């Protein structure tokens, strides 16, 4: 067993860290204040990422990616997690699910996405279908040789910048012993398709500038060529390709926690009260001790889950544990950071209050903490027949 990073991994980490510090940090306050990313800045980040060969680094070399392993990619995400998501979005990592593209879809969607020419967004959640994905009401019915889509999706991240969308839609229903069960199909939908509108979404407390949008389908007509994977095979593509995205959330949480921790640590070492630095008070130093222990634990849990994927080992439970623990750790660590800073921690002169707000969504998206616990519990008890 070897817990050290290779020279390549060290260099990947230091390059991405330096990139985030120099190209992302200086713009964060403005994005936070205005709630938007200036298009020139978005293009600039994208251009630099492409030049560095990091754009779509999660894709295999056959399609023009760098072919990073899950572990290497987790390290990239961890460093990106230090920066504003609204901005690191343009350090493009298209959805892996695009690997399910076939035939002409590769030229129209997969390859341009990897080259940074077209940006994608994933649309699953609906107002009445959150954790219960199968409860979706957005449907596609057959009409002649086409599909006609109706319904609404919301909380669609990155939709404001997306050129096309991977949309999950109900395409029928099966009767099962547990009651009716919807069949789901994934579609590729171009922005501007008649009957399809992207509307501004809600104003979130987390990740300002990383917009969430509402998608509306009103008799939107799609040919068969837009089906990603098989008809009624939406769950298969989802399970094959979206499996690993929870590692991303865990890894980003670890990176952000480290940045918040460093602020708190330096504050504790410099801020003087009652004639000494506050770090000399155990009430403060013990909070820092607990925080760094939790961050390290979440870090290793995340890297180990990614490593299992690389080894081809079952990792569903481990990924769920990493996502659950890292996101809950982030909430505790950012809260601790504010406590160490005191009142100043709540002011937007420092980024801590932002990390604290941003942390909140991590326990919700990509499977809530409750869903992760459900997965962990199921993986433990199913083999025992429970």
């Amino acid at each position, binding site marked *: 067993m070897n817990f050290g990073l290779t*020279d*390549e991994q*060290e*260099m*990947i980490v*230091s*390059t991405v860290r*330096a*990139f985030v510090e120099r190209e992302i940090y200086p713009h964060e306050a403005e994005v936070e204040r205005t709630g938007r990313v200036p298009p020139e800045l978005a293009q600039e980040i994208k251009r630099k990422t492409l*030049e*560095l*060969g*990091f754009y779509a*680094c999660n894709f295999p070399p056959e399609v023009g990616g*760098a072919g990073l392993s899950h572990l290497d990619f987790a390290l990239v995400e961890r460093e990106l997690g230090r920066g504003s998501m609204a901005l690191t979005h343009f350090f493009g990592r298209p959805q892996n699910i695009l690997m399910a593209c076939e035939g002409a879809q590769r030229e129209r969607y997969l390859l341009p996405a990897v080259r940074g020419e077209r940006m994608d967004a994933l649309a699953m959640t609906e107002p009445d279908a959150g954790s219960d994905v199968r409860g979706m009401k957005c449907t596609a019915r057959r009409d002649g040789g086409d599909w006609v889509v109706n319904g609404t999706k919301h909380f669609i991240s990155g939709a404001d910048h997306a050129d096309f969308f991977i949309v999950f839609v109900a395409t029928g229903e099966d009767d099962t012993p547990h009651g009716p069960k919807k069949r789901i199909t994934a579609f590729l939908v171009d922005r501007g398709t008649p009957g399809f509108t992207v509307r501004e979404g809600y104003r979130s407390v987390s990740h300002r500038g990383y917009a969430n949008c509402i998608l509306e389908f009103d008799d939107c007509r799609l040919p068969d060529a837009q089906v990603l994977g098989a008809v009624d095979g939406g769950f298969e593509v989802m399970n094959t390709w979206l499996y690993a995205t929870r590692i991303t959330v865990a890894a980003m949480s670890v990176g952000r926690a480290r940045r918040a921790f460093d602020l708190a640590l330096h504050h504790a070492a410099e801020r003087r009260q009652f004639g000494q630095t506050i770090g000399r008070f155990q009430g403060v130093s013990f909070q820092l001790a607990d925080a760094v222990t939790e961050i390290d634990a979440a870090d290793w849990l995340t890297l180990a889950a990614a490593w299992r994927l690389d080894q081809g080992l079952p990792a569903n439970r481990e990924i769920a544990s990493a996502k659950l623990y890292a996101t809950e750790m982030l909430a505790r660590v950012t809260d601790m950071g504010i406590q160490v800073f005191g009142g100043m921690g709540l002011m937007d002169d420092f980024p801590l209050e932002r990390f604290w707000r941003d942390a909140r969504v991590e326990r919700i998206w990509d499977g809530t903490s409750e869903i992760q616990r459900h997965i962990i519990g199921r993986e433990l008890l199913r083999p025992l027949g429970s």
Partner: protein
Amino acid sequence: MKVLVPVKRVIDYNVKVRVKADGSGVDLANVKMSMNPFDEIAVEEAIRLKEAGKVEEVVAVSIGVKQAQETLRTALAMGADRAILIVAADDVHQDIEPLAVAKLLAKVIEEEEPGLVLCGKQAIDNDMNATGQMLSALLGWSQAMYANKVEIEGDHAVVTREVDGGLQTVKVKMPTIISTDLRLNEPRYASLPNIMKAKKKPLDEKTAADYGVDVAPRLEVVKTAEPPTRKAGEMVGSVDELVSKLKEAGVV
């Protein structure tokens, strides 16, 4: 033409330096180490010269502990073609003095026959600012220190130097030794494809003994101390008050 770029592994510029309890030096155990920033500028300049077609090969060399291999890998990931590691110490706290480094570099140059040496003007750990100049003396080569701009024109180089009070442009005969100043260029990030390629690039490992150079220290560090903490300032309400305070302090 071949360029030789010496790179030093030093304490990272972001690390808050701590003096060891016994005052013998700076504590380097378990701290982040990186390539000396001035050397990074030298690597960048060498790669730019290669991209401009003025140079065929960039060779990075590092002298110190075995871990300096990481520093060389960084140089390779930035775009250097190959690297030479000369292991001359086994304790991270043992600094190799400029004269020993210059002597070792002179030996490497004898073997490699580069047309140009690009080095950082100084290392940020001990700020000696001596290796380039000593190397020039040992080889009898011309030198252009503190470069702000470098142009290679056939058998000579035109170098703009940062000197006290401004800039000075000199024309030196090749082969030459140029040391880099802060504003010469902005070093690139290592690109992902180059990071992946770095491991496959050759890295020769040698020892100081291979070159017959004695690296034993000639200098003795008597004491290392933290800089004195600044005394608290005093707010003044008016220019008159400021002037009288300055007079009181005997500085005007």
